[in-house]
């Protein structure tokens, strides 16, 4: 009897082992946020970091996930996401051929192909007790996240495949979920279901305080804090002015500081290259239209005065 079998697809999921980078710093505020989030997670509640871009939601989520000391499954929300992108689906086939000639007068030939179920990240995390970090989950359409409702409340993962013998998976007791999202007014963001939001402990993040921004920018750029504070002050005053379409964040501070470090620029109004870099990074926060030329000119004037004030 000859038996031939072939699997047409073999997928191995990757799990993340997180560790802080050398320039990651944990200020008292970040530590406080982490400890609160860990308290909720330890009690069995999923945590949701919500806040505008550049407030460190994803980094904080990864930091908290790393503190749980479990492998991490990272998912980034997407408009095209479907339930199968979370739980898995029937991908590929398992072929089996049997050629039975045990009795020479009888020739029996069988051939069948069965679909293969392949777990996706949520299923793996639920089954193995990994930490799920669902970044920007409101970028997925709400119906794609429906499967999470039962997972988070009843601790049961319901697989929609009817043929599947194990259609129900009890969620591992060490499974934890961390979500991040932008506010609803952001482009490409969907409104989260009330039922899902109700299951999450939402922690609203805002821009960090001055000290934290200085420390993080200094760590990420390599500049001493006493020099970095000039850049941070310019960006924070610009943010406070409200004369922008997209709020300047700490990323702008890091961009300016890192380029200045690499180019050996003096953080001074007298260095035209430094001024140009500040204008490039910060002026891009305002939409450029032909009607807004005057506004843009006023904005440039304000930025130059800020640079002159802080970087003398």
């Amino acid at each position, binding site marked *: 009897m000859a038996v031939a079998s072939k699997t047409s697809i073999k997928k191995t999921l990757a799990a993340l*082992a997180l560790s*802080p980078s050398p320039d990651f710093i944990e200020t008292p505020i970040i530590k406080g946020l982490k400890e609160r989030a860990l308290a909720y997670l330890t009690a069995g509640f999923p945590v949701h970091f919500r806040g505008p871009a550049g407030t460190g939601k994803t980094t904080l989520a990864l930091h908290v996930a790393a503190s749980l000391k479990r492998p991490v499954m990272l998912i980034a929300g997407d408009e095209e996401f479907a339930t199968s992108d979370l739980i898995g689906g029937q991908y590929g086939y398992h072929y089996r051929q049997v050629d039975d000639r045990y009795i020479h007068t009888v020739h029996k030939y069988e051939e069948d192909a069965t679909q293969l179920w392949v777990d996706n990240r949520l299923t793996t995390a639920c089954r193995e007790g990994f930490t799920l970090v669902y970044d920007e989950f409101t970028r997925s359409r709400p119906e794609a996240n429906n499967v999470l409702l039962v997972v988070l409340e009843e601790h049961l993962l319901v697989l929609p495949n009817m043929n599947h013998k194990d259609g129900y998976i009890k969620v591992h007791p060490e499974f934890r979920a961390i979500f991040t999202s932008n506010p609803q007014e952001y482009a490409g963001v969907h409104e989260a279901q009330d039922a899902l939001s109700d299951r999450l402990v939402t922690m609203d993040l805002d821009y960090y305080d001055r000290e934290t921004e200085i420390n993080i920018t200094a760590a990420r750029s390599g500049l001493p804090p006493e020099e970095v504070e000039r850049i941070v002050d310019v960006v924070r005053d610009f943010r406070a002015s409200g004369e922008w379409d997209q709020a300047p964040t700490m990323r702008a501070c890091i961009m300016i500081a890192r380029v200045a470090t690499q180019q050996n620029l003096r953080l001074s109004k007298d260095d035209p290259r430094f001024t140009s870099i500040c204008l490039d990074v910060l002026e891009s926060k305002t939409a450029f239209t032909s009607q807004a030329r005057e506004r843009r000119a006023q904005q440039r004037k304000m930025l130059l005065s800020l640079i002159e004030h802080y970087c003398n």
Partner: protein
Amino acid sequence: MKTKKFRSVQDTIIVGHRNRSMPTTRKQAMSELASLEYMKASLERELSIWVANQKKTEKRLQQLYERATLLQEVLDGLPSQYQPRRCSSSGEQVEKNDENDASKFQVVSLEY
């Protein structure tokens, strides 16, 4: 007809001795006594081996009970979802993956 099975040569000799008539001369008696002495030593060796084997088996059985108790305790502490899930929808036997987590999952290091 039911026949008795002899397990060893010693059994044959013992039956032979039992059915034998009483010796009439001193020489016959001495000869049989010598044979019995030899048998006695052999049977005593066999008995000591059996006793040793019995002790060894009892010890192994005890170890087995201890291990079984330990496994039962571990099993009681584990939730039922630890049971490996078949990943085929047809009910077909699927290769059991006994490898540990590290080999089941490709671990990617990420610094944040």
